[in-house]
C-alpha cells in the first residue's frame, strides 16, 4: 500500500514507536518505513527485525533506553509515537486505576522533554473522557492531561478496522463471522469507523505537524454500531447478521459467562463498557488540518483482502451456475473486481448449500430482474459471455445438440417456475 502522500520534506526524520507490535503499531511502522522515515521500535519481546526498523527491548514503565534516540539525527528531527498500553492495568501503589499506563507515559514524557524531541504523539481514544464508563477511557483522558509541553499532542482514534484481524477489529470480525444472532448493547450507538491505514497516516501527519492538545482521527460521520457489525458480516463473510438489542447489564453478564466457557470468543467487559460510553466526536476540522481523507466504511472495507475472499466465493457460485462448470480464476477475480466497480452493494449473503451446489440457484433464481440476486446473475452472465471460457462453452455444441439442450432447458425452467415464484414471495 502506498503512503506516498506523506511528504519526505518534513523535519522529523526519525521516529521512536512504542507498542509497535500491536494492531496499529505494526502497520504504523510499515507505513513510516515505506514513507522513508528512520524507525526505532520499542517492545517487550525482542521484535523481529525486518532489517529496516531498529528494535530495542523495552517495557512500559521502564525508562527510555539510552540508544532509543538516533545519534546521527538532531533531537529536533526526532519524534516519539506512544502506542503501548497495559491492558492488565497493573496498579501502582498510589494510583490503583491509572497504574502502569500513567506512570509509564510520564517516564517517556520526561525523557522526551529531556532529549528535546520535536514531537511526542500519544495515541488516545475516542472514549477518552474524565467520566468515561470504562477505565480505558478514563486513563487515556488522564494521560492526555499530562501533554502540556510544546510538540506534545494526542490523537483520539475512532473505531479502527482493516488490516490484520487484531485488536478490537479482530474481535468484531470473529464475532461477525460466527454469531448467527448477535445480542448487542445499544446497537444504535454511533461509531466513527476509520481504516487502519488512515489512522496510521493521521498519526504520521501529527508527527509532521505542529498541532497541540488533541485531534480526532476518526470518520467525521457516525454510523450505528449495529450497522457497522452488519456491514462487517456482509463484506467480510458474506453473511446476514441479525442484531438483537439487549440491556447492557445482561451483556456484561454474558461476557462474564463467556469467560467460564473454555472455547469460543472471549469478550472483555472493559470493551463493552468502552462501546457503551462512546460519545460522538467532532473531528471534520481536525481531518482537514491533517489533510486526511476518511473513506466511507463500507466502500473502504470492500477493498480488504477478507472482503475480496467473500466476493471471490460469491463469484465462484454465480459463474459456476451460469457456465455449469467451475470458472477459471481470472474470470472469478474479474467478478470480484466488477462488484467493487459497479456499486455500493457488497457480497450477497448466500446459504452454504449454494456454495456446495451452485446449480440449486435454478430453484431460487428471482423472477424479478431487479432483485439483488438477479442483478448479480446478470453481472455473472455478462462476464461469463465475455470470457474465453464462456465462448468455448457457447460455441462448442453442434446445431442439433443446441436445439435439444435448449428445449430441455426450457422444459426444466417451466417446471421450476412455480418454485422460483414461491422463493420470490418468501424472500419478500
Amino acid at each position, binding site marked *: 500500500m502506498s503512503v506516498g502522500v506523506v511528504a519526505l520534506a518534513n523535519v522529523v526524520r526519525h521516529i521512536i514507536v512504542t507498542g509497535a507490535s500491536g494492531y496499529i503499531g505494526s502497520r504504523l511502522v510499515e507505513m513510516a518505513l515505506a514513507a522513508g522515515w528512520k524507525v526505532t521500535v520499542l517492545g517487550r519481546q525482542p521484535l523481529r527485525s525486518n532489517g529496516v526498523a531498529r528494535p530495542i527491548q523495552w517495557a512500559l514503565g521502564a525508562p527510555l533506553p539510552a540508544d532509543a534516540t538516533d545519534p546521527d539525527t538532531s533531537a529536533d528531527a526526532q519524534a516519539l509515537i506512544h502506542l503501548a498500553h497495559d491492558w492488565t492495568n497493573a496498579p501502582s501503589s498510589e494510583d490503583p486505576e491509572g497504574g502502569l499506563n500513567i506512570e509509564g507515559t510520564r517516564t517517556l514524557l520526561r525523557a522526551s522533554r529531556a532529549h528535546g524531541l520535536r514531537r511526542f504523539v500519544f495515541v488516545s481514544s475516542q472514549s477518552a473522557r474524565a467520566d468515561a464508563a470504562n477505565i480505558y477511557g478514563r486513563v487515556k483522558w488522564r494521560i492526555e492531561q499530562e501533554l502540556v509541553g510544546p510538540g506534545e499532542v494526542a490523537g483520539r482514534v475512532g473505531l479502527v478496522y482493516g488490516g490484520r484481524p487484531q485488536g478490537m477489529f479482530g474481535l468484531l470480525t470473529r464475532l461477525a463471522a460466527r454469531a448467527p444472532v448477535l445480542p448487542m448493547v445499544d446497537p444504535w450507538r454511533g461509531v466513527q469507523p476509520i481504516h487502519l491505514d488512515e489512522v496510521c497516516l493521521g498519526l504520521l501527519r501529527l508527527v509532521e505537524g505542529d498541532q497541540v492538545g488533541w485531534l480526532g482521527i476518526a470518520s467525521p460521520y457516525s454510523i450505528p454500531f449495529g450497522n457497522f457489525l452488519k456491514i462487517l458480516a456482509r463484506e467480510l463473510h458474506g453473511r446476514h447478521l441479525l442484531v438483537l438489542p439487549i440491556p447492557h447489564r445482561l451483556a456484561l453478564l454474558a461476557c462474564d459467562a463467556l469467560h467460564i466457557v473454555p472455547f469460543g470468543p472471549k469478550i472483555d467487559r472493559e470493551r463493552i463498557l468502552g462501546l457503551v460510553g462512546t460519545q460522538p466526536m467532532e473531528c471534520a476540522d481536525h481531518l482537514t488540518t491533517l489533510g486526511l481523507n476518511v473513506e466511507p466504511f463500507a466502500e473502504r472495507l470492500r477493498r480488504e483482502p477478507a472482503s475480496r475472499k467473500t466476493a471471490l466465493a460469491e463469484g465462484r457460485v454465480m459463474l459456476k451456475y451460469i457456465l455449469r462448470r467451475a470458472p477459471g480464476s481470472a474470470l472469478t477475480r474479474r467478478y470480484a473486481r466488477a462488484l467493487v466497480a459497479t456499486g455500493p452493494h457488497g457480497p450477497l449473503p448466500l446459504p452454504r448449500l449454494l456454495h456446495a451446489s451452485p446449480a440449486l440457484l435454478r430453484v431460487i433464481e428471482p423472477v424479478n430482474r431487479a432483485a439483488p440476486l438477479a442483478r448479480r446473475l446478470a453481472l455473472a*452472465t*455478462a462476464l461469463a459471455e465475455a470470457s474465453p471460457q464462456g465462448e468455448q462453452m457457447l*460455441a462448442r455444441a453442434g446445431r442439433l445438440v443446441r436445439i435439444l439442450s435448449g428445449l430441455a432447458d426450457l422444459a426444466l425452467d417451466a417446471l421450476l417456475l412455480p418454485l422460483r415464484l414461491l422463493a420470490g414471495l418468501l424472500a419478500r
Partner: protein
Amino acid sequence: MRPRFSHHSGSNCPEVIIVGSGPAGVSAAWPLLEAGVTVMMIDAASEVPLPAAPRGDIGSFRRDPSRWKVQFGGNLAGVDPSGDQSPKLTTPLAREMLAGFATTIGLRVRDFLALGSLSRGGLSNIWGAVAAVYDDEDLAGSPVRHADLLPSYAAVMQRIGVSGSAGADGLPVEEGPTLTAPAQRLLSAASRSPSRNGFVLERTINAVVMSERSGREGCARCGMCLWGCQRNSIYASGLELPQLCRFPHFRYFGGALVRSLLPQGKGHALEISCKNGRMLLHAPRILLAAGTIATTSLVLRRLGSIGSTRLLTNPVGAMAFMIPALFATPLPERSFALGQLSYRFPLRDGGRAAGVIYGADALPLVGIAGRLPISRPAALRLTRALAPSLLLATCYLPGRFSANTLRVADDDNQRQIVIIEGVQTEDARDTLIAVGRRLAREMRRLGAFALPGSLTIAQPGADAHYAGTLPMGGNGPTACAPTGELKACPGLYIADGAVLTDLPAKHCTLTIMANADRIARYLAARIVSER
C-alpha cells in the same frame, strides 16, 4: 494527422465562426471554405484522444481473452447489467464520448434521455451511420423542398462516402457490404413478394466507405462496428478535420466552450471559456452547429424571455424477429453490424412510420438474454442459439408524436441550466404498438417471426434525434428563415437539427448535413457578393 490549433487574435476576425465540429458544423465549413470565406471553428472537444478502436474481426473478438476490456472498459465500469439502453450507448467508447455533456451545459431532464457529446465530431462518433434522404413527403411543411436539398445531398454523400444499394435521383451510393444472413433472407423474400399497402423494405444506406477515401479504409466487414471502426470506414465528422485544416483560411479552436452569444456592433460576439480563461470572439456572422440542445439553449439565452420551445424527437420502440431456418447455426466469423434494411409505411392519419433492421450476430448476447423470461444460464444459451437468426428492428414515429419542451433558466446558484421535459402525445404509445403489429405482420409474410413480448418502447429522447426548436419557416419568436438565419438575430445562422421544420420518422443526420451544406452555400454566395 491532427488538426492545428490556433488562437484567435483580434486583428483578423474571421468572416464566419462555426460553433461545433459535428456533422452539421463540418458540412457547413466545406462550402464556405471552398468559396474562400475565412472560417473559424470552435469546438468544446479537448485534446484527450479517444480510446483506440480494437483490431481483429468479430470471430476472433469473441474468443479474445481481453475482450472484456473492450466490452466493459479496463476498470469494468461498463459492466452494469441493469441498463436497458441501446448497446451502442454502453460501450466504453460511447460512455467516454457522452461523459460530461449534461453537467457542462447544466442539463436537467425529466422523463427524457438527452445525449450529447463534447468530443471532436460530437455524436457522429457513435452515429449508427444510417444515411436517409428525405423526399418531398418527408419535407411536407418545410419551406425547403427535396429539389433544394438535392445538390447538397449529392455533395455530402460524395464527400463522406455512402454505401448500400444504388440510390434514386442519381445520388452517389456504392454497393454496400454483404448483409448478415437473416437480413439477406428477408431482402430476397421481399424482392419475391410485392409490397402491399405502402410497406417498403429496402437496403439501408449507410455512411460507410467501401474503398479507400481520404485516409479512411474501405469496410472489410470485420463486424466490430459497435466497438469502434478500426478502419474508419464508418463516417465520423472528426475524420474530416485534418482536411479542413489544409485550407489556409480555416482555423480550428479546440477546447473552447461557448458560454453565451452577445450582440456586438453589426455582428455577434461569443463568450467562450477555454484553458486560458474566458475570452470574447467576434465575427460578422456566426453559424451555430453545436447540436440541437446546445444550440437552442444558446439562442434562447440570446433572445431572452422566450419561455420554452418545443423539442422534436422520434418516439421509438424496438422489436425482435427470428428466421427459424437459421436458429442454432454457428455465429459467423465476420459480419457487418450497422443497419441492414430500412422499412417504412404510411400511418393512418398521415405521415409515415419508419425503422431500421439490424442483425444480432455481432452484438453481446447479454443484452438480449436479459430480456428473456427464463433462468440466466438457459437464457444465455438460448440467445446464442437465437443470435444468428435474429433481426432487431427499430420503429420510429414522426416528430409530431413528441411534445417535449426545452427552456433555459438559472438555478439557485445563478448557474445557467437547460431544462428538458420529455412528453409524448397520448396516441404515441398506441401508435407504436400498432406499428409493431403491422411490422410483425409484414415480417411474418417474409418469413421472420416476432418474438412474443419483445416490443419495448423507449423513453423520450432515446432516439437522439433532437430537432425542430428553431424551425425554418413559421413566424414564432424562434423561427429561422429558409436560409437558416434566425429571424430575430440577423447574421446568426442555425445549421444543425434545431433548424429542421419537422422531423419525419426517417433518420435525420444526412439531411441535417445536407441542409447545413445548403445554408453554407447560400451564406458563402452572399459573403462573396458583398465583398
